[in-house]
């Protein structure tokens, strides 16, 4: 292999992960740790989206479908079948991946692209949400409560930091996986399909297979985020697991952070949720009460600003205005 740790792009990943890993020693407050853990879950969901949409150009508007499969998968495996959550986790991820394969097969075989594909994914997520809300197996509108039994062997931690580090391990794995894909033949093919599918086919790229592989991986990664979500809050219902909120955050984070880049989802999730949190706190302080949905206003403004001034996201903007950032690329 040519190039060292840094020219290959793995070095920066290790540094960022190391910094995130020592963060809990700086903030001991539970609320901060809770918040950071949540940011990592959204990051992971967004990394799944970024692989399919950022690299592969297939814009999904329904990643909640995968997130919910992961969340319900791990919750129901415990509550209905008495499975250990550590065992249920890979099953839930597999369920998300399989959902991705099926959804991809149905829509890509039918040659759905662009907004048609986006609408179909949205429809799938909504159908899952309605079914989960109606079926007694999934607990209906009351949702699923995972019984509290705080033991590491039961995927429930007394120390909030343990959960944070676990979520960080998932995010780190997804960062490394994304970088490895970006540098592989599969990654090149994925980007080629995004840029021009016909040209890619002419060069021997099996576009359908490439897209299916991408949506399968994407579904698995976002399902892992859903599983973590379920284990963090120990309660899910249809609107939490399959609701549009996660579809929106999974796509907003990479778009704002830097679409089709390794760090985009992480940067976007930190910025998005960070600013959302600050705004909520500020308005609560200002008006003496919470203003529901004020963070969504911030999301909207951020999206508009990004589309207008930073089409390559915040990282792209930094890259452009800070010449020092370009040092590594000679």
């Amino acid at each position: 292999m040519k190039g060292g740790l840094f020219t290959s792009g793995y070095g920066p990943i290790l540094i960022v992960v190391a910094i995130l890993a020592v963060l809990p020693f700086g903030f001991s407050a539970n609320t901060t740790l809770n918040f950071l853990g949540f940011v990592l879950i959204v990051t992971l969901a967004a990394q799944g989206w970024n692989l399919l949409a950022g690299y592969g150009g297939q814009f999904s508007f329904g990643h909640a479908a995968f997130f919910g499969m992961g969340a319900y998968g791990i919750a129901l495996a415990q509550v209905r079948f008495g499975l250990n959550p550590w065992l249920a986790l890979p099953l839930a991820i597999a369920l998300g991946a399989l959902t991705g394969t099926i959804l991809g097969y149905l829509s890509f075989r039918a040659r759905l692209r662009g907004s048609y594909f986006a609408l179909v994914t949205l429809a799938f997520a909504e159908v899952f949400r309605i079914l989960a809300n109606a079926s007694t197996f999934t607990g209906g509108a009351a949702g699923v409560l995972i019984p509290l039994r705080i033991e590491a062997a039961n995927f429930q931690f007394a120390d909030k930091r343990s959960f944070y580090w676990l979520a960080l391990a998932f995010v780190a794995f997804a960062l490394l996986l994304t970088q490895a894909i970006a540098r592989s033949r599969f990654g090149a093919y994925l980007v080629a399909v995004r840029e021009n599918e016909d040209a890619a086919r002419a060069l021997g790229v099996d576009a359908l297979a490439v897209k299916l592989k991408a949506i399968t991986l994407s579904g698995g990664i976002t399902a892992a985020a859903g599983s973590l979500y379920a284990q963090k809050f120990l309660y899910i219902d249809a609107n939490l697991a399959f609701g549009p909120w996660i579809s929106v955050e999974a796509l907003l984070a990479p778009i704002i952070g830097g679409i089709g880049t390794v760090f985009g989802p992480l940067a976007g999730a930190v910025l998005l949720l960070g600013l959302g949190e600050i705004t909520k706190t500020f308005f609560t302080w200002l008006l003496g009460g919470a203003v529901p949905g004020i963070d969504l206003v911030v999301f909207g403004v951020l999206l508009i600003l990004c589309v207008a001034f930073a089409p390559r996201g915040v990282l792209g903007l930094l890259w452009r205005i800070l010449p020092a950032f370009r040092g590594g690329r000679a």
Partner: protein
Amino acid sequence: MSTAPLLRCTGITKRFGGLVAVDDASLDVEAGSITGLIGPNGAGKTTFFTVIAGFAEPTAGSVSFKGRDITALPAHRRAELGVARTFQIVQPFAGLTVRENIAVGAYLRHPGRDAALDRAEDIARRLGLGPMLDQSAGDLTVAGRKRLEMARALATEPSLLLLDEVLAGLNPSEIRDMIPVVRAIRDSGVTILIVEHVMQAVMQLCDTVAVLAQGRMIAKGRPAEVASDPKVIEAYLGHGAAKRMQAQQGDSHA
């Protein structure tokens, strides 16, 4: 030659609704040749070409490559077997650099990143794209994009290269520059089928020329023979044109 041709198209017909774009057209391309496919606008050249490359299914007829029937194979499988094409309307991966564009083609035979990138660099140099390796493909000139189309297709290491009007839209000096490039590709062992409007180039480059008019193959032979074939002249200039020309020539000789 007793061996089978590299590419054999037999009785290709392609209908779009009521329109017959290609009508029972057959064509052989001998290994090692540069074969030209010419014809007036709307003759069905590009449709015929698309069928060979696997981007459209023929209504009837068959395509065989190296003696193997490939009529039902999708485009990417044909590329694996060694058929590469360029697009008349260039289709660069605009967001990628020249190097990355060509590497997508090179990955077909070189799964490793370093090998694919090295290969891409070699090919870029061969096609005169060396100085533009790190430029975005979207920023290339028309001539540059045409070269990139060829470079990408060549990177798949084909035995048959289908060139769809690679000279169209180029100025005369750019065409002069391009002719030796095409010839060098053939000399490196790649058989070429070229659809082209620029006659001067066709005459200089091709060993054999086939003429398609209104979906039918009306003539085939050496470039000079085809150019003086009355059927070909009529296809281009209208009914009776060959006779009128002969008459005029007769007059001026008298």
